[in-house]
């Protein structure tokens, strides 16, 4: 089979107005559009039933789209499925394995299934990189859940894909294994593989993704560079601990929207930083000095990706839909 090697930085996956309505009438995807560049890691966040798995399944050929098109390395997934599917590896959410097969056989099977000639040295490399080499002759039913997850990754990598879909890769695994998975993803990215992962774990997206996409009710409500997203939507708070309690907030501080704690010993200023890094902190501090208010300590905090995510998915549907970005 022909093997295509997309250039790093070129668009490797283009989803155009993709919709899916299941037979029962459930609208799982609503005109989703998204471009993904070769070599990047994008995390799709969303609550249960948001449409993350349907999106991945449609791109991989497991679900038939109702409308819209998807291109992988410029090839249509429907008409050029031989080319597009050969470029894709999929690690499903469920631990679905053939219980009575050995690790070696099941990974070799996957390579053949995706049209690649046998290559024991590649299989060995994959198994070693996933710490599975010692288990190569073990039957899958004898492996732990974490090891089975690794086997699924090995199967997905057996045919040397250029795009890897990881559907909830760390669901149900312990913290140690989760960190191992992140290291594996990092190594894969270093080898030029484009990675699209869905996750419930915000810290997972925060840790490894370049871009974050948020899906809710079948709509891609936002796609943004991780840092830009946190800068744009992440609210910061400045907390000032005062020497002397205040009975009420001086009128000169009112325009800043500062809150006074119940005991009068803390001022809380919530602010946003513009993309150029501007904010009103210096003006607030100046106003405090002019009002004669002294403080003994201060600290700032930034909302996590989790708080951003919760804020986004809890928005009313009309306000949330901002369309897809590239």
């Amino acid at each position: 089979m022909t093997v295509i090697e997309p250039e790093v930085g070129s668009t490797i996956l283009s989803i155009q107005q993709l919709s899916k309505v299941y037979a029962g009438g459930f609208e799982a995807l609503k005109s989703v559009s998204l471009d993904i560049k070769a070599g990047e890691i994008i995390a799709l966040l969303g609550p249960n039933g948001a449409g993350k798995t349907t999106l991945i399944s449609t791109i991989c050929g497991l679900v038939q789209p109702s409308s819209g098109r998807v291109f992988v390395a410029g090839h249509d997934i429907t008409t050029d499925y031989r080319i597009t599917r050969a470029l894709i590896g999929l690690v499903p959410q469920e631990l679905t394995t053939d219980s009575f097969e050995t690790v070696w056989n099941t990974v070799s099977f996957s390579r053949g299934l995706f049209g690649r000639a046998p290559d024991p040295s590649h299989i060995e490399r994959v198994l070693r990189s996933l710490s599975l080499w010692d288990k190569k002759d073990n039957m899958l039913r004898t492996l732990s859940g974490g090891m089975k997850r690794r086997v699924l990754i090995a199967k997905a990598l057996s045919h040397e894909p250029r795009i890897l879909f990881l559907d909830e890769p760390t669901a149900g695994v312990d913290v140690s294994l989760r960190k191992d998975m992140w290291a594996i993803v990092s190594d894969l990215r270093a080898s030029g593989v484009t990675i699209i992962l869905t996750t419930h774990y915000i810290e997972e997206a925060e840790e490894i993704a370049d871009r974050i996409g948020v899906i809710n009710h079948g709509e891609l409500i936002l796609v943004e560079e991780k840092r830009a997203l946190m800068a744009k939507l992440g609210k910061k708070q400045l907390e000032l601990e005062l020497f002397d309690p205040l009975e009420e907030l001086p009128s000169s501080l009112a325009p800043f929207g500062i809150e006074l704690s119940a005991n009068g010993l803390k001022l809380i200023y919530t602010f946003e930083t513009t993309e150029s890094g501007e904010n009103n902190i210096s003006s607030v501090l100046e106003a405090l000095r002019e009002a004669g208010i002294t403080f003994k300590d201060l600290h700032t905090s930034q909302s996590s990706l989790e708080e951003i995510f919760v804020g986004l998915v809890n928005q009313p549907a009309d306000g949330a839909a901002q369309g897809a970005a590239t």
Partner: protein
Amino acid sequence: MSKVLSRVMNYYAVLAIYKFEMARMRRTLLQSIVTPVLTTSLYFIVFGAAIGSRIQEVGGVGYGAFIVPGLIMLSLLTNSISNASFGIYFPKFSGTVYEVLSAPVSTLEVVLGYVGAAATKAIILGLIILVTAGFFIELRIAHPIIMLLFIVLTALSFSLFGFILGIWADNFEKLSIVPALIITPLVFLGGSFYSTDMLPPVWQSVSLMNPVLYLVSGLRWSFYEISEVNVWVSLVGVSLFLLVCLGVVYGIFRTGYRLRP
């Protein structure tokens, strides 16, 4: 050879599926071979020696020899259907079918892999029964090529049928209901163990509506040149059934019926 084939089709995928399915037979080798040998031996002991000795020759053939084609056909039909239906149903049940559905394989390649393996297993068992029969009776095969043609066509077409059954079934009960409640009765009532000439005229006419009668009759003709219906009618019939099954499988993959929502 493999390089040439891989240019025109996903040859490695066909081979992977075929080998994967055949591996299951190897894992249960004892059960796969001992069971048909034991069953066939029991049939010969009960029908051939105990009951057959009291039955006159049928169409100039001893009763023990007469039932050989029927026994082979019974094994071919049940094994083809169960092998192929289980082969595709189990990945659906366990969820591993995602890999086949997301692979760069065409309908033809998937069918070649699964149905090819199911048919191969059924043919191997059919031939084991033939060899086992040779220990009990003197085998005579008048038209070995036609015999092989019948065996291969039957194994292929009913493996395809089993494949369709495996896709249609959404629980284990449905998987077993067709072989148990439809195929086995049709084989027993299709002249496997008797000639329809022994039946009253009305039942002879009814028997002609049983498609398995044509298969048993055709296979028996290849052994002893005796048949209830013209051998060419049998061959055309099984070939047509093969084409219909192929058409249905093509339709299933085109529409995604029970595979791709």
